[in-house]
């Protein structure tokens, strides 16, 4: 099929398409042709394709209604495979070679859709029908739901990862102009001339806005020519940036406006290294909204037939795309706008079968021109009913008496009905910016009233639709915006002359009553199949707030977000409840203006870039050593070093035993390190830790715990005194960032009198811990200038030295319970020192160990960690650490410790667990229950729980599974038997409560 509906070339208004080149595309498998400059919608119309989709609920056949973002019906599935995309508006897709489109929400085919049975049964499906049924039998809802879900939804998601990528741009500008129509271009020209940094964005493929679809003159030339010249003038200004194919979708606080630029949606796929879309985050000093207006339809019976479209759309298809929307058109209007459409279409050779005008006496230049052109005007009439199924075949018109139909109906044969119910200013962004709206009774629409941010509104968006006014207001707004942003004196450029006829007043009319009750469906929201009767039903049942109306009927909740339906629905409701529209309310406009691709919002933060990855200085060594890694906060830590043939458990056991028997080394660079300096450093430590720090000698460290102000354990670690007023604090890996900000809070906010500075040095130091009976030998072999004997460097001692010629800090501390040393070195040299230690340890049998073995070693030693044991609900005493809680000084959290529940005798306390039968495994996360009726295996819930396994492991040292647990009054219950139950795994084993320290409870090994 060739392009039967394409206008012939030649003449002044032959469209803005490039007829020299042909584009092949496919729709539902048919190959069709169009031209560059077409949208998918215009190309489909050019090829005579009327039926483009099926509606959401009734699966009624639907055609193209609009020409841009307002389109409710023409939603298609674009592209195939991993690039497929559902619900794309055909009116906004630029035609390109190889474009593949499919209709949606139909089965088996668009022409024959079984879902249309819903339409036959539609009497059963009024608004909210689902709230009233599907309740019996109760258990069947899930069954009903499966079918409801299947018929709902629209297009389909891709099932493979998106191969395209997306970019983010953060920019500041002086004036952001949203909308590249006449008002926006004038605003940009006004601001740009003064040298302001200006960004102009427009959602269309080309700047120009609605004048590209009209036959108007600006400055004596056709408007599209004026647009091109103005665009060229702007492009030559160094501080002006023009962004076509770019939609401003969000207006956030403090003049942050977000734009999405469709960089490569108009081609088959993005070029190499080209993003598909780009998100612009624009912080603008001033914003000019020149967003235009959206034409609204008039509601009448069966107004959804394919061929019923907006008058402005019919005109734009002819003038911009050189497509006649049909062979025989009827206009239905309550204002002058449709007359221009009629005249343009007549000039394009379309048979204009009549203009049905609800106004009893249309006067003014446009109706006069129509009369002069011999067009039939049916004044004081309305279209009462549309005929046709998959395509419009005609309409019935009737005389109007006020808002009522009167007399008998007359048929008019036509295949297109172009409707204009007036215009709604596109106030979405203004409202998103918290600006207040006002209902204008003359226009019958909401217009901007009081702005809440640094924003100007110009032209149609402000409710001033005449071209001359748009140009003048744009110029004024641009000049004002520039002046307020610090550029120029606010003088606007001269407004160019225009050719437009002054319009006569329109008559606000929302809906035409049915010829007889129940005849035809009067759609308000065509996408979601919401009718005027649905609105009435909602009102009748008490859903009278506009939000109730939307939610009960789904009015305006579709992908078009009600651009052509919200105000109309509101007006119909207002008529029913007898309250003025502003009293019934408006809906809140929220971002996004039009739906935004998820990928664009995320930009580059996908895949491994979701969050930054932190590696220690020794990471490459671990990789080479075959480590398996685990996430620890943002860090990747070596979990274990499996050797060929080993299971994970075997590797862990080997690493543990080697450390207990010989010597192990572990990368502890991830621990938080905070440098603390100042004359009040000791006092500061006294306040943040529960224990006392005044007597700590230089060159010695001490273990400390910190509480939150509610008395619960927050973090722990060792802090070492490096000098009289100089300490190095360590924190847990997980809390490093939090502790740092917390210390800053106390110092800056609560205790500004303390003379202390803190600095995070986590990243500055790499750290390796040697542990095991042979650790001293290894260190002695590696270190230069340090006596590592127990006398010279005792437990909790600290010294500086060199390893491989590099200065290091040596701390004698231990987490494993073995003789241990931690070596800190400037991160750049971490690898060198690590390798030196490995080399020195070679003859002593050194092996690296990962976080798994580290965990086993600490469980065997009975150390709690923040997370499983210190879970934010445990006190120091719960963890058996009341000895570290000073009675004599204040510290953060102390005052909370005496609250009754913190002293309760049945608090959960840290204990150890051993299986009664050494062969039994204590699986992870068991709950502990006592023997006795009501708590045994298979007992009826709720089963009283005595405690919980917080950490479990197989202890190669002891040859059995062990665990740490929090048990009610646990310290008094050593020796008692409980059952470690795991209903999730079906396991239950008897366990004995034991002290939490399994090996070397006296700590002798630490002090050798």
């Amino acid at each position, binding site marked *: 099929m060739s392009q039967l509906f394409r206008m012939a070339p030649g003449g002044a208004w032959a469209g803005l398409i490039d007829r020299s080149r042909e584009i092949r595309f496919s729709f539902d498998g048919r190959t069709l042709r169009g031209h560059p400059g077409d949208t998918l919608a215009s190309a489909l119309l050019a090829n005579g394709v009327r039926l483009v989709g099926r509606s959401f609920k009734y699966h009624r056949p639907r055609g193209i209604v609009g020409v841009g973002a307002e389109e409710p019906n023409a939603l298609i599935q674009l592209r195939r495979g991993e690039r497929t995309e559902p619900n794309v508006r055909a009116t906004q897709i630029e035609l390109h070679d190889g474009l593949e489109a499919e209709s949606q929400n139909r089965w088996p085919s668009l022409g024959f859709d079984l879902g249309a049975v819903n339409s036959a049964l539609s009497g059963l499906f009024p608004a909210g029908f689902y709230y009233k049924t599907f309740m019996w039998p109760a258990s069947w809802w899930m069954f009903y739901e499966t079918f409801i879900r299947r018929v709902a939804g629209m297009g389909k998601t891709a099932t493979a990862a998106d191969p395209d990528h997306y970019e983010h741009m953060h920019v500041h500008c002086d004036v952001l102009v949203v909308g590249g129509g006449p008002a926006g271009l004038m605003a940009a020209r006004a601001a740009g001339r003064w040298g302001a940094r200006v960004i102009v964005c427009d959602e269309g493929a080309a700047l120009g806005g609605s004048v590209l679809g009209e036959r108007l003159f600006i400055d004596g030339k056709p408007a599209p020519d004026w647009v091109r010249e103005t665009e060229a003038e702007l492009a030559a200004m160094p501080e002006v940036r023009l962004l076509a194919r770019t939609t401003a979708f969000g207006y*956030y*606080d*403090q*003049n*942050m406006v977000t734009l999405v630029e469709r960089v490569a949606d108009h081609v088959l796929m993005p070029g190499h290294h080209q993003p598909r879309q780009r998100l612009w*985050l624009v*912080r603008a000093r001033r914003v000019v909204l020149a967003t235009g207006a959206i034409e609204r339809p008039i509601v009448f019976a069966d107004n959804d037939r394919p061929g019923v479209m907006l008058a402005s759309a019919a005109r734009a298809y002819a003038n911009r795309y050189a497509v006649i929307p049909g062979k025989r058109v009827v206009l239905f209007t309550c204002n002058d706008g449709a007359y221009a459409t009629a005249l343009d279409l007549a000039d394009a050779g379309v048979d204009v079968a009549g203009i049905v005008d609800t106004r009893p006496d249309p006067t003014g230049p446009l109706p006069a021109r129509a009369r002069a052109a011999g067009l039939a005007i049916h004044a004081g009439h309305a279209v009462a009913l549309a005929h046709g199924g998959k395509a419009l075949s005609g309409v019935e018109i009737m005389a109007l008496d006020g808002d009522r139909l009167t007399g008998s109906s007359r048929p008019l044969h036509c295949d297109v009905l172009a409707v204009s119910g007036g215009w709604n200013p596109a106030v979405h962004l203004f409202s998103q910016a*918290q600006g207040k709206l006002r209902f204008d009774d003359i226009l019958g629409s909401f217009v901007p009233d009081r702005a*809440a941010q640094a924003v100007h509104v110009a032209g149609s968006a402000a409710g001033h639709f005449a071209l001359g006014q748009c140009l003048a207001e744009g110029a004024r707004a641009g000049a004002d915006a520039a002046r307020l942003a610090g550029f120029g004196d606010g003088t606007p450029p001269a407004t160019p002359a225009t050719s437009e006829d002054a319009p006569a007043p329109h008559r606000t009319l929302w809906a035409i009553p049915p010829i007889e009750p129940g005849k035809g469906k009067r759609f308000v929201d065509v996408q979601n199949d919401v009718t005027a009767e649905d609105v009435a039903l909602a009102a009748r049942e008490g859903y009278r707030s506009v939000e109730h109306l939307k939610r009960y009927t789904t009015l305006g909740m579709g992908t078009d977000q009600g651009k052509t339906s919200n105000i109309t629905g509101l007006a119909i409701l207002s008529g029913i409840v007898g309250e003025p529209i502003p009293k019934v309310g408006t809906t809140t406009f929220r971002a996004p203006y039009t739906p935004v691709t998820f990928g664009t919002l995320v930009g580059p933060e996908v895949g491994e870039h979701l969050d930054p990855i932190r590696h220690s200085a020794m990471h490459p060594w671990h990789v080479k050593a075959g480590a398996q890694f685990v996430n620890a906060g943002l860090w990747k830590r070596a979990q274990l070093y499996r050797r060929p043939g080993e299971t994970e458990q075997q590797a862990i056991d080997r690493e543990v035993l080697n450390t207990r028997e010989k010597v192990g080394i572990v990368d502890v660079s991830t621990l938080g390190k905070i440098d603390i300096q100042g004359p009040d450093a000791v006092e500061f430590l006294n306040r943040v830790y529960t224990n006392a720090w005044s007597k700590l000698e230089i060159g010695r460290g001490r273990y400390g715990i910190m509480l939150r*102000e*509610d008395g619960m354990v927050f973090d722990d670690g060792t802090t070492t005194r490096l000098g009289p007023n100089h300490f190095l604090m360590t924190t847990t890996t997980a809390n490093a960032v939090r502790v740092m*900000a917390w210390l*800053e*809070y106390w110092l*800056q*906010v*609560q205790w*500004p009198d303390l003379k202390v500075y803190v600095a995070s040095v986590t990243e500055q130091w790499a750290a390796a811990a040697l542990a095991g009976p042979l650790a001293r030998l290894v260190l002695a072999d590696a270190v230069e200038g340090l006596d590592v004997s127990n006398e010279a460097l005792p437990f909790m001692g600290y010294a500086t030295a060199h390893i491989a010629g590099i200065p290091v800090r040596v701390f004698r501390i231990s987490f494993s319970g073995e003789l241990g040393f931690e070596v800190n070195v400037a991160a750049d040299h971490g690898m060198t020192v690590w390798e030196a230690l490995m080399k020195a340890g070679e003859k002593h049998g050194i092996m690296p160990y990962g976080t798994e073995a580290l965990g086993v070693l600490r469980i065997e030693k009975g150390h709690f960690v923040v997370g499983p044991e210190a879970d934010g609900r445990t006190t120091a005493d719960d963890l058996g650490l009341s000895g570290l809680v000073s009675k004599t000084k*204040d510290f953060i959290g*102390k*005052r*909370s410790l005496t*609250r009754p529940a913190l002293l309760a005798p049945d608090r959960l306390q840290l204990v150890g667990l051993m299986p009664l039968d050494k062969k039994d495994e204590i699986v992870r996360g068991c709950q502990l229950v006592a023997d006795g009726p009501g708590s045994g295996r298979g007992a009826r819930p709720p089963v009283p729980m005595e405690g919980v396994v917080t950490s479990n492991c197989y202890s190669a040292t002891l040859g059995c599974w062990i665990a740490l647990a929090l048990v009610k009054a646990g310290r008094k219950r050593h020796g008692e038997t409980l059952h470690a139950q795991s209903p999730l795994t079906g396991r239950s084993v008897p366990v004995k409560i034991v002290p939490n320290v399994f090996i070397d409870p006296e700590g002798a090994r630490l002090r050798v």
Partner: protein
Amino acid sequence: MLLIDCPWCGTRDQREFTYGGDAAVKRPADPAAVSDKEWHDYVYIRVNPRGSHVELWHHNAGCRRWFKLRRDVVTHEMQGSAPIGSELEPPLPIAGRPGKP
């Protein structure tokens, strides 16, 4: 997106900051000397006004200073900022605060 005026660095995007809650929260100088109720109120009770709110922010991705910011929590309007220890401009009319009609 909030544009926050750090008294030390100037206005920056909210992504550079973390929130620290009501700036009026003041730790008792001598916790042992205050009543249980006073301590409880310090740890747990917040005025939580619906309107102008003086709050703490931390410029964690900048100068790492905590500071005070007055912000309308209904409109997100910024009403001034100051270093800790300096006074902010007196509050705007307190209509909308709890207990005030």
